[in-house]
C-alpha cells in the first residue's frame, strides 16, 4: 500500500534550490535509506514532509490525504513523526517524562491540569515499556541531559516512536556516536520499527549502516533524486558511487 | 502655523534624546545579544556627571561656549562605566541563558540608582546657565529656544557619526561581522572580547550623551533612568531590536506621539504609544526594521 506520495516538491532558500521538483513514493513497511552528500537536500525533504518547512510548490499525500498545507501538529496526528540529527530532548525532564509527555500529548491528555501525571498508570506503563524497548529504562528517573550520547540518540528515537507513527523519519540516528555503538543502536531501532510496523526513512551518512539496514535506498544529489533501488542496485550504480564516494574521498 | 513649527521642533527634540538612549540599547543588543536593564540608569549617570562637572565649570567661571564641551564629560563617564561593567558583570554570563543578563542588569539598576543618590543626594541637579546662554531663535516665524535646537543638532550629528562609524569604518565592519556571527568572527581572528567591551562602551556613551544634553532642560533627577528605559523599550519595540535605522525611526515616531500627546491626549499618551507598538508588531512581528 502506498503510504506517502511526494509530487514534484520544491523548496528554495533565496537562490539555493534545496529540493528541486522531487517526486517519490514510499510504500508501507520496511526501511528506506536516504543518502546523499551534504547539501543534497535530504534534511530539507524531511523538513518538508514533517511540516517544519512549507513547500514552494508540489504536494505531499499521506495515506491518500493531501497534507501539503497541514501544520506540524496535524501531521503528527495523521501519523508522521521524526527524530533529529542534533539530539532534541527535554533535557531537564527525566527520561521517563520525555516519553510520558509524548504519550500524554498523543492521547490528548495534556490539558489535564489538576491531576498528577504519575497517577495515570496506563501512560506510565506504556512509557516504561517504550523505554524498555530502547534499553534505557534503567535510567528512567535520570534527567535526559545526564545520559550518554548513544542513549540520548536512542531516547530521541524513542520519543518519536512513542507517538505511534506509521511513518517515521530518522535524521542521522548514529551521527556523533562511536562506531562500536552504531550497530547496537541500529539493531534496536530497526527491530522496533519492524515489530511495530512503522515505515522508516533513515537519513544516514555512514554507508555501512545504510547498506546493512535498508530494504531500499534513495540517493539524492543537489536537490534531486539520483537513484532509487535496492542496496545491490545502488551499489552497482556507477553514478551514485562516483558522486558519493568522490565526496567521501575528498573528506 | 507657528504651533506646527514648534510641535515639529519639539518632536525632533524628544526624538534626539530618545535616539541617543535607544541607539545604545539597540547597538548593544545587535552586537552582543544583551539587553541592559540598567541602560536608563547609564543615561542618568550621564546626566548627573554632566550636571556636576558643569556646576564645577560654572563656579570656575568658564565661558558658556566651553560648557558644551564640559557636557561631554557625562558621556565620557558613562562610556567609562560601561567599559568597567561589561567585563566584570556581563562577561561571566555569556555562556548562560540570556535571562540571567536581565537579572544582573536589574541588580545593577538598583545599585546605580542608589549610587547616584549617595553621590549627589536626593535633590535634582541642573545647569540652567546653558539654556540661558543659547537664547532663543526665530525659526520660520516662531520663537524657539536655541538650546533645544542645539540638542536636535547633537542628535543629528550623533546619528550621522554612529552611522558612519558602523558602516564606513574598519572597526564598523568588524562590529557588524561580530553582530552577525560571533563564532565565525572569532574564528577569523576577531578579538571578540575587545569588540564587546567597545560596543558596550559606545552604547553607554550614547546614553550618557543623551542624559548630558537633556540635563540642562529637565535636570538630573533620581528615577529618570527608570522612566527613560520604558520609552527606550517602546522605541526599540517599534523600530526593531538590533537595528539602528529602527532606533531612528522609532525615536521619531515616539517623539512625535509624545509631543502630540502632551497637547492633545495627555492621560493616555503611553497607552497610545503602546497601541502603535502593538499595531507595528502585528504587521511586522520583529519591529519595523528588526530581524527575526
Amino acid at each position, binding site marked *: 500500500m502506498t503510504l506517502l506520495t511526494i509530487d514534484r516538491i520544491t523548496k528554495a532558500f533565496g537562490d539555493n534550490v534545496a529540493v528541486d521538483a522531487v517526486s517519490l513514493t514510499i510504500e508501507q513497511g520496511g526501511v528506506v535509506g536516504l543518502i546523499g552528500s551534504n547539501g543534497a537536500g535530504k534534511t530539507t525533504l524531511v523538513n518538508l514532509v514533517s511540516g517544519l518547512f512549507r513547500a514552494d510548490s508540489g504536494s505531499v499525500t499521506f495515506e491518500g490525504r493531501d497534507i501539503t498545507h497541514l501544520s506540524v501538529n496535524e501531521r503528527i496526528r495523521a501519523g508522521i513523526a521524526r527524530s533529529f540529527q542534533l539530539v532534541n530532548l527535554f533535557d531537564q525532564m527525566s527520561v521517563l517524562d520525555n516519553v510520558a509527555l509524548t504519550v500524554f500529548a*498523543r492521547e490528548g491528555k495534556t490539558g489535564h491540569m489538576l491531576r498528577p501525571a504519575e497517577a495515570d498508570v496506563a501512560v506510565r506503563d506504556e512509557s516504561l515499556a517504550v523505554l524498555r524497548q530502547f534499553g534505557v529504562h534503567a535510567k528512567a528517573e*535520570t534527567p535526559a541531559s545526564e545520559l550518554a550520547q548513544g542513549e540520548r540518540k536512542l531516547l530521541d528515537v524513542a520519543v518519536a516512536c512513542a507517538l505511534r507513527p506509521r511513518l517515521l523519519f530518522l535524521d542521522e540516528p548514529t551521527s556523533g556516536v562511536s562506531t562500536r555503538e552504531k550497530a547496537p543502536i541500529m539493531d534496536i531501532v530497526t527491530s522496533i520499527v519492524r515489530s511495530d510496523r512503522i515505515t522508516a526513512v533513515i537519513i544516514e551518512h555512514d554507508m555501512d549502516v545504510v547498506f546493512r539496514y535498508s530494504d531500499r535506498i534513495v540517493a539524492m544529489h543537489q536537490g534531486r533524486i539520483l537513484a532509487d533501488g535496492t542496496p545491490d542496485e545502488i551499489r552497482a550504480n556507477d553514478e551514485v558511487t562516483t558522486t558519493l564516494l568522490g565526496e567521501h574521498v575528498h573528506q | 502655523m507657528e504651533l506646527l513649527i514648534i510641535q515639529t521642533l519639539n518632536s525632533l527634540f524628544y526624538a534626539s534624546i530618545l535616539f541617543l538612549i535607544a541607539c545604545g540599547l539597540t547597538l548593544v543588543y545587535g552586537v552582543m545579544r544583551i539587553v541592559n536593564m540598567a541602560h536608563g540608569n547609564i543615561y542618568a549617570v550621564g546626566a548627573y556627571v554632566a550636571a556636576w562637572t558643569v556646576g564645577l565649570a560654572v563656579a570656575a567661571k568658564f565661558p558658556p561656549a566651553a560648557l558644551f564641551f564640559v557636557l561631554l564629560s557625562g558621556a565620557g563617564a558613562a562610556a567609562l562605566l560601561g567599559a568597567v561593567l561589561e567585563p566584570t558583570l556581563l562577561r561571566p554570563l555569556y555562556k548562560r541563558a540570556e535571562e540571567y543578563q536581565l537579572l544582573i542588569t*536589574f541588580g545593577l539598576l538598583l545599585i546605580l540608582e542608589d549610587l547616584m543618590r549617595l553621590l549627589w543626594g536626593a535633590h535634582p541637579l541642573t545647569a540652567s546657565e546653558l539654556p540661558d546662554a543659547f537664547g532663543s531663535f526665530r525659526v520660520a516665524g516662531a520663537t524657539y529656544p536655541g538650546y533645544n535646537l542645539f540638542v536636535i543638532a547633537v542628535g543629528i550629528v550623533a546619528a550621522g557619526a554612529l552611522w558612519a562609524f558602523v558602516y564606513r569604518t574598519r572597526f564598523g565592519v568588524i562590529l557588524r561581522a561580530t553582530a552577525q556571527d560571533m563564532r565565525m568572527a572569532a574564528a577569523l581572528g576577531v578579538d571578540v572580547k575587545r569588540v564587546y567591551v567597545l560596543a558596550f562602551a559606545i552604547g553607554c556613551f550614547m546614553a550618557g550623551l543623551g542624559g548630558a544634553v537633556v540635563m540642562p532642560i529637565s535636570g538630573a533627577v533620581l528615577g529618570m533612568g527608570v522612566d527613560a528605559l520604558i520609552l527606550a523599550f517602546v522605541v526599540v519595540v517599534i523600530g526593531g531590536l538590533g537595528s539602528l535605522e529602527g532606533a531612528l525611526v522609532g525615536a521619531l515616531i515616539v517623539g512625535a506621539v509624545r509631543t502630540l500627546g502632551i497637547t492633545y491626549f495627555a492621560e493616555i499618551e503611553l497607552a497610545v504609544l503602546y497601541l502603535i507598538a502593538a499595531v507595528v508588531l502585528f504587521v511586522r512581528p520583529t519591529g519595523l526594521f528588526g530581524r527575526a
Partner: protein
Amino acid sequence: MNARVSFGPLALAAWQLWGSAAVVLVLAVLPWLIDPFQTLQISYGLIFGIAALGFNLLLGYTGLLSFGHAAFFGTGAYAAALALKYLGVKSMELYLVGGVGASLLLGVIMGAVCVRYTRIFFAILALALSQVVWSLALKFFWVSGGTDGLRLPTPTLLGGLVTPAADKTAFLAFQYYYYVLVVFVVAVAAMWLMVRSPFGKALQAIRDNEVRAEFVGVRVRRYRFIAFVASAGFTGLAGTLWVPLNGLTTPDILYWPFSGKIVFMAVLGGFKTFLGPIVGAFAYNYLETFAVGYTIYWQLLLGVVLVVLVLAIPDGLVGSGVKLARRLRKAP
C-alpha cells in the same frame, strides 16, 4: 519538579505530605507565639509567596521571564479598592472574585500579545505592557486616586461571618492571618497539582525544547498563553490579599521595578524548584525590611545581593540546598 530521588512515587508524596503538614501546623500556631508585627510579616511573606509562585509557573516551568507581573498584582489590588469605592463592596470573597477575575482578564489581553514572542523580547514586551496599566492608574487619578492611591479598610470575611473588630492590628494578626493562610495553602496545593499534571509536563517540555514540543504534538503557543493567564490569576490573587493588609494601594505596585522584586524573590529562592519562590518571597521580605531599616541606600544593598546571587548562587537558596543534599546523599 527537579528533586531526583529514587524513592517510589508514593514514598516521596508521603514525605512531602508530612513535611507540609508540619509547616502548616507551625504557621497556624505562630500568631499565639509571636507579636502581631511579626505575624503581619509572615502574612506578607505568604502573600508574596503566592505572587512569586504564580510568577514562577511562567519562569521555572514554562521558561518565560516576565518583567510585567506588577500589572497583575496591582490589578488584583486595585480591583478590590475600586469595588469598595464604586460598589461599596466590603466582603473579602467578593474582592477575591473581582481581583482574580480582573487579573485573569488582563492576563488574557497581555498574554495574547506577549506569547507570540519568547525570551528577551517577551520580557521587554511584558514590561512595556505592564507600564501601560501603570500609566493609566497614574493618569486617571480621579478614578484611581493617582499617587495618593485608594484606601481599603479591613474587609468582612467568610461572607460577613467575621467582621473587623475595633482593634485593627489584632484582626489582621489573627482572623485575617488565618484567612490568608488558608488561601495560601489552597493556592500552593493548586499550583503543585498543576505543575505535576500532564499540563505541567507539557509546559516543562516547552521550556526545555519548544521545537521538539511542537514535534510531539504540544500546541506551544496555546499552552504558553494558558500558563500566562494562570500565572496572572495567581499573582492577582496575591495583590487582592495584599490590600487589606497594607490598608492602601498606590501606583507603586504597578510600577515596573515592582515586577523586578517579584523576579528577585523567585531567583533568590531558586526558580528551578517548586518551593524556591515561596522561600524566596519570605527571604526577600525580611531582607528588604532589614535593608530599609538599616540604610537609606537599601536599593544598593538589594542590588548587590542580586548581582552576587546571579554570579555565585544562581540556583538560589532552595536550589542550592537541594543540590547540596543530593551531593551529600551521593557521598559514601
